[in-house]
């Protein structure tokens, strides 16, 4: 594969003067900005044309941390108490994960990750 940096352009680029650049590129762009509708106008137009949203179910409307377990599965007060406790613990556990930063674009893992380098040399 050839290195792009070594390729010679087939057509030499035309020299562009500063004035030419301003008149041909910057001025039309500036005019377009002035002619463009404002964001608030766009939002108003969108609101007019938008159909009313279907009502969301109660469960879907709540983020998981605000959702509640179905206590009807509990048959005894001890089960209910255990569910209350474990639910609270799990909510806290999930919150820990949500607060842990992740690099943008981070992939996921489902198995082991072999190291490239060990302290005592190459893996």
């Amino acid at each position: 594969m050839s290195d792009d940096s070594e390729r010679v352009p087939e057509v030499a680029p035309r020299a562009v003067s500063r004035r030419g650049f301003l008149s041909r590129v910057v001025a039309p762009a500036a005019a377009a900005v002035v002619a463009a509708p404002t964001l608030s106008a766009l939002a108003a137009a969108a609101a007019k044309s938008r159909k009313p949203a279907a009502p969301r179910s109660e469960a879907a409307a709540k983020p998981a941390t605000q959702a509640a377990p179905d206590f009807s599965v509990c048959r005894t007060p001890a089960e209910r108490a255990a569910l209350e406790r474990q639910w609270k613990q799990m909510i806290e556990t999930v919150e820990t994960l949500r607060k842990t930063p992740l690099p943008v674009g981070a992939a996921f893992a489902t198995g082991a990750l072999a190291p490239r380098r060990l302290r005592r040399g190459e893996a």
Partner: protein
Amino acid sequence: MALPQDTLFLSVRDLGVRLRRREFTSVELTELALARLDSLGKDLNAVATLTPERAREQARRADRELRQGTDRGPLHGVPYGAKDLLDTAGIRTTWGAKPYENRVPDSDATVVSRLEAAGAVLCAKLSMAELAGGLGYHVGNASLQGPMRNPWDRERWAGGSSSGSAAAVAAGLVPFAIGTETWGSILCPSNFCGVSGLRPTFGRVSRHGAMALSWTLDKLGPIARSLDDCRLVLDAIAGRDPLDADSADAKLSWRGSERGNLRGLRAALIPSDFGKNGDAETALAFEAALSALRESGLTIEEAKLPDLPFEATAVVTLQVEAVQAFEELFTGGGVRTLVDERAPIQAEVARAVAGTDYLRALRLRLEMQRAMNRFFEDYDLIVAPGFLKIAPGVTEDMDKYFLGADPVGGMGNLCGVPMAALPMGPGKAGMPVGFQLVAPAFDEALLLRIGMEYQRRTSWHRARPKA
């Protein structure tokens, strides 16, 4: 002539040598194992199902082949037991749980097939915590086979979830057994029963034909008296299996593991607060283990794991996968037949985790694996105590007994790195206690090198419970 009752306390390696010297036959060894499993094993609730027909047939074949000069390796003719979540053709495999008490698979798990190919003799399916603890348990009686008793004190728990596997080895019923671990299920019973456990890297051993509890955390591995014996077993069961998409290609190499001198190796010691919820006797035993390792030349320095939520990430991953794995028990009502009274609420608990949270856990996991790989550029391995206390009573509430966290276990299982459990002497009341080693992914050879050197210098792995 009947063999001495303590014959099965010999190491796998030693048994193999004596079988080849014709000191005894595989049939004689197998009959001894079957008899001990039937009596002592049942007293301990360590046995789910005896497999005498299959065992006798395999033993006769082993004797015949060895006589004819066909040698399948160090396990040839040696009896063993398998955790009752490994499929065995025509033999019931209950997963330790009432809803599956009559489950009879029609083929063998890959591990069982590989051990058969290595000439090992399957004598029993061994008891386990119901569903390997997949829907939780907090008392040592949560098993179809009843309270999982410790051979060192039957009123204490054997550990779990590979309870019968560790108890059977500790009691001299079989010289090795196969266990599984999602989070602690090989290391915990190994430590509590005073035997050695080798929990390999995720993907090192095929899980085809094993009960799925957590597709991204489940691992299989050996439990034996010594780490050297674990190595022999791992040699036979490791390797890529096209029937398990997660099984790894990575070659299992033991190069360098025979070197005794540990000079030049640097271990990170993850501190534990024995004063908070531990036994003074366990702290002393751990100090003695560290001294033995230092005498071998190992440099041990206190260190901290990367500041990342390993345990929380493992908890979220496990909860969601386990509830999904056993969904049919919730929809069909079978969950109500389990021993653990909290199992029926676990699907509700899992609802606290959104799909995006689960994916976030898997994404964090990769970052954690990278962080640990950087950690292992500074340290060759990690040393940490197992449990800070001896095994709890068999009917004791573990939630009240164990109060501490498990950062090393959480990290090790989430990152899928190999770990070993080694006995380190008696703790309180003469009960066994142990410690753990953690190595980078696919570096089981390092665990073996450290563990074998430790076991050359100590004899805790040879200690036996009173009859």
